[in-house]
């Protein structure tokens, strides 16, 4: 087996096994810190051993065994006040692998703990990406536009609080579930977005594992809470976005914008499922939350067979509804993109100018500005905006796309 094959096997195992491993270790040892460290050490051991020994026939089982051993080693090292009985129990705990359903629940348990309301929202997202998503601290720091050291401290503090304040490791009771779910949805949406627009020079432009994981977990929550409109809305939003995944990156690894995508390459089954969910929510007759509105916007896009058939007035109306719920600058930026189609690039550019203070560090702001300036024939300004966007963009496909658009300015 070549070095590349082994590296791929490790990457794949990481994507498939990380959350399961952390969740099972947390259950067994009752400590997120030990679970995270042992999982990380197990993968480090795989990186060291698999190239020489070969990839084990069941990588998940190998990692589980290794991680358990690492965790026990650490507990032994730290726990000189030896609780011998407990240690013996851990050593001889050779339970057969749990059935799939139980493992799914285990991950859900991990999610609800990471998304506990006693933790700040930014902490919940960071912790979930680390513990459930298996992202590294630098990846998470980049997703949040904060320094690595800051992000590291945030995660460390969160784990310490969970332990000291005894935040429980369980799925909330039915009565608490609705209140706990919205925090989880925000986290899953962020995981999805990190997958959809993955960052890092050596990272695939789209990390299907993360988008798939976000969708899988959102489906799981929908199964638990079929009446919750926002759960349905988020699932629809993810499906309608995921449906365009393959059309969104060209064979040469370049981002393909919505208006240039081959709409025949969209996943028709995912589009149909997303549209079904959006219709279900419309029929419910309840005022929609932000995910339902975002899903509806995506339903409008995916209903148009050709970009010229897009009902832009509907898109702008939905964004107006969304701005009332969530007056964030990112929503205002996306609204401006739709406004450019409806009212022209000058109007959109004026709207963008008002966002400069808050979004000057965000690549999409400069990319949008560059495109509007290009359409208005302001070549010099467009080039400067593309330069800024390229400098800030972390996604390889996006960088390639922006570079081409800049170089085509002439």
């Amino acid at each position, binding site marked *: 087996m070549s070095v590349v094959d082994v590296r791929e096997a490790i990457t794949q195992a990481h994507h498939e096994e990380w959350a399961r491993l952390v969740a099972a270790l947390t259950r067994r040892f009752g400590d997120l810190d030990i679970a995270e460290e042992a999982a990380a050490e197990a993968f480090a051991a795989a990186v060291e051993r698999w190239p020489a020994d070969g990839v084990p026939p069941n990588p998940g089982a190998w990692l589980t065994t290794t991680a358990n051993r690492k965790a026990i080693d650490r507990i032994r090292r730290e726990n000189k006040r030896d609780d011998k009985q407990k240690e013996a129990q851990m050593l001889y705990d050779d339970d057969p692998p749990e059935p799939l359903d139980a493992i799914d629940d285990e991950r859900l348990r991990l999610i609800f703990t990471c998304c*506990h*309301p*006693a933790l700040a929202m930014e902490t919940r997202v960071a912790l979930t990406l680390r513990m459930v998503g298996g992202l590294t601290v630098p990846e998470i720091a980049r997703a949040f536009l904060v320094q690595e050291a800051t992000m590291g401290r945030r995660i460390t503090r969160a784990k310490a609080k969970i332990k*000291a*304040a*005894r*935040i*429980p490791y369980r799925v*909330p009771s039915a009565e*608490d579930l609705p209140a706990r779910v919205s925090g989880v949805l925000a986290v899953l949406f962020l995981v999805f977005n990190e997958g959809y627009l993955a960052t890092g020079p050596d990272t695939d432009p789209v990390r299907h594992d993360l988008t798939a994981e976000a969708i899988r977990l959102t489906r799981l929550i929908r199964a638990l809470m079929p009446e919750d409109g926002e759960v349905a809305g988020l699932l629809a939003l993810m499906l309608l976005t995921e449906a365009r995944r393959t059309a969104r990156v060209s064979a040469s690894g370049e981002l393909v914008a919505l208006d240039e995508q081959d709409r025949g390459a969209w996943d028709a089954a995912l589009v149909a499922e997303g549209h079904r969910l959006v219709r279900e929510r419309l029929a419910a007759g309840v005022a929609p939350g932000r995910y339902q509105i975002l899903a509806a916007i995506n339903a409008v896009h995916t209903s148009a067979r050709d970009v010229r058939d897009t009902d832009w007035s509907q898109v702008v109306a939905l964004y107006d509804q969304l701005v009332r719920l969530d007056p964030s600058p990112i929503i205002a930026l996306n609204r401006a993109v739709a406004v450019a189609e409806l009212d022209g690039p000058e109007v959109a550019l004026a709207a963008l100018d008002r966002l400069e203070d808050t979004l000057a560090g965000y690549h999409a702001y400069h990319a949008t500005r560059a495109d509007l300036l290009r359409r208005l024939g302001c070549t010099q300004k467009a080039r400067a905006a593309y330069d800024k966007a390229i400098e800030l963009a972390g996604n390889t496909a996006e960088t390639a796309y922006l570079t081409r658009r800049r170089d085509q300015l002439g």
Partner: protein
Amino acid sequence: MQYLVSVIDDKTGSATPTEMAAINAFNDRLEAGGHWVFAGGLGSPSTATVIDNRSGEALFTDGPFLETKEYIAGFWIIEAPDLDVALKLAAEGSKACNRKVEVRPFL
């Protein structure tokens, strides 16, 4: 597992008769549920004395060690299996005494 539930206020002993009745009813519920450990109201920070005997010669200073606008006006110590239960009880306590409260675990 025990938690300190601090009552945050900018004055002390200021509970109205209605609030006192609600606090008593809440205390009864704590006892009935096996959550009660201890509770009490505190005098104002201006009645505090700071003692430093680290050098072996006790030094007394009039007043609180930290001047803040809001401070701990009273507290509960509750017994709860985990933070979810503690937060629920603290939410009830906040409602009963009609003040903000802070939950902190004992080590």
